[in-house]
């Protein structure tokens, strides 16, 4: 089985991602409560004996990967995604011109 890291790392990572995702009251969210309850119920340790523990840990790590990837993708999108074309007014403004005003509207 490929390297998953320790369950504690996954758990902490998940809580961190949830905190980023929801803002201040993240402890009230169903996601937080579900994750804490599930980890506590299975009492995930570093022993690799229990198959249910392994399944849970793998699922948790997969979900953590999703949350992290979505956050990083959103940041990249915000930074690099095209903002669309400039309007004709903005383009004219780039070189210090203004578009002429036509009282009757464009013919």
């Amino acid at each position: 089985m490929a390297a998953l890291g320790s369950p504690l790392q996954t758990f902490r990572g998940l809580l961190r991602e949830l905190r980023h995702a929801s803002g201040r009251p993240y402890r009230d969210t169903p996601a937080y409560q579900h994750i804490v309850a599930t980890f506590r119920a299975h009492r995930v340790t570093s022993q690799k004996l229990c198959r249910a523990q392994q399944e849970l840990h793998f699922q948790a790590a997969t979900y953590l990967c999703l949350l992290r990837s979505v956050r990083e993708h959103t940041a990249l999108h915000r930074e690099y995604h095209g903002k669309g074309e400039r309007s004709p007014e903005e383009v004219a403004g780039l070189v210090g011109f203004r578009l002429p005003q036509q009282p009757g509207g464009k013919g």
Partner: protein
Amino acid sequence: MWCGCRRLLWGRFPTVRLPRPPPAAAGSGPVGPGGGRAYAPPAERKRFYQNVSISQGEGGFEINLDHRKLKTPQAKLFTVPSEALAIAVATEWDSQKDTIKFYTMHLTTLCNTALDNPTQRNKMQLIRAAVKFLETDTVCYRVEEPAALAELQKNEWDPVVAWAEKRYNVAIGSSTSILGPNIPASTKETFISHLASYNMWALQGIEYVITQLKSLILSMGLIDRHITVEKAVLLSRLEEEYQGFCVRRQYR
């Protein structure tokens, strides 16, 4: 002539109704704001709800945005079979800030696909589409040169192929020919009957993973928890990673 055209347009205005999604549907109705595309949700929309919560209904778990129940793009009630999945979908909706960015809501999108089945495929069609990928599976398609890449493919991909052959008791092999490996019919049958043990929800997800990774073998490795998501993606993109490595080395 121009004024005449304008009068024609104005005359038609009262009879044209702008398509608006019904208030009960939190997704978009079949007509998106871009015009008549049948299954395209809008790119962005303002967040119109305060609270996201989950409730359990007859068909499974439902998502509530304030007091409204979430619906799919085809206006069906959004129900998921597992609570954990419902919580994850609710988290996606709750994570949206001022605008709803649908392109970040992958689990919602997948659930919508599972519920609506827009490509209208039945279980057998999904399975056959998935197994068909084996003929052009990424990890079976090898290059002969450059030698470094061929070596990398051998070192990284051979173990996964060997694992799959052992785990499913099949013969797969790899090939440098443009036609790809010759997959025996018994191998395909084994995978078909294995995939048949999954339900439609799982199959929609599995088929999506296979399409993204371009590999049935890597997807099975992921589902059987043999490799992590990060590793599966890395193996799927081996050639791109190698090319990036070459470029970085060139500019050192």
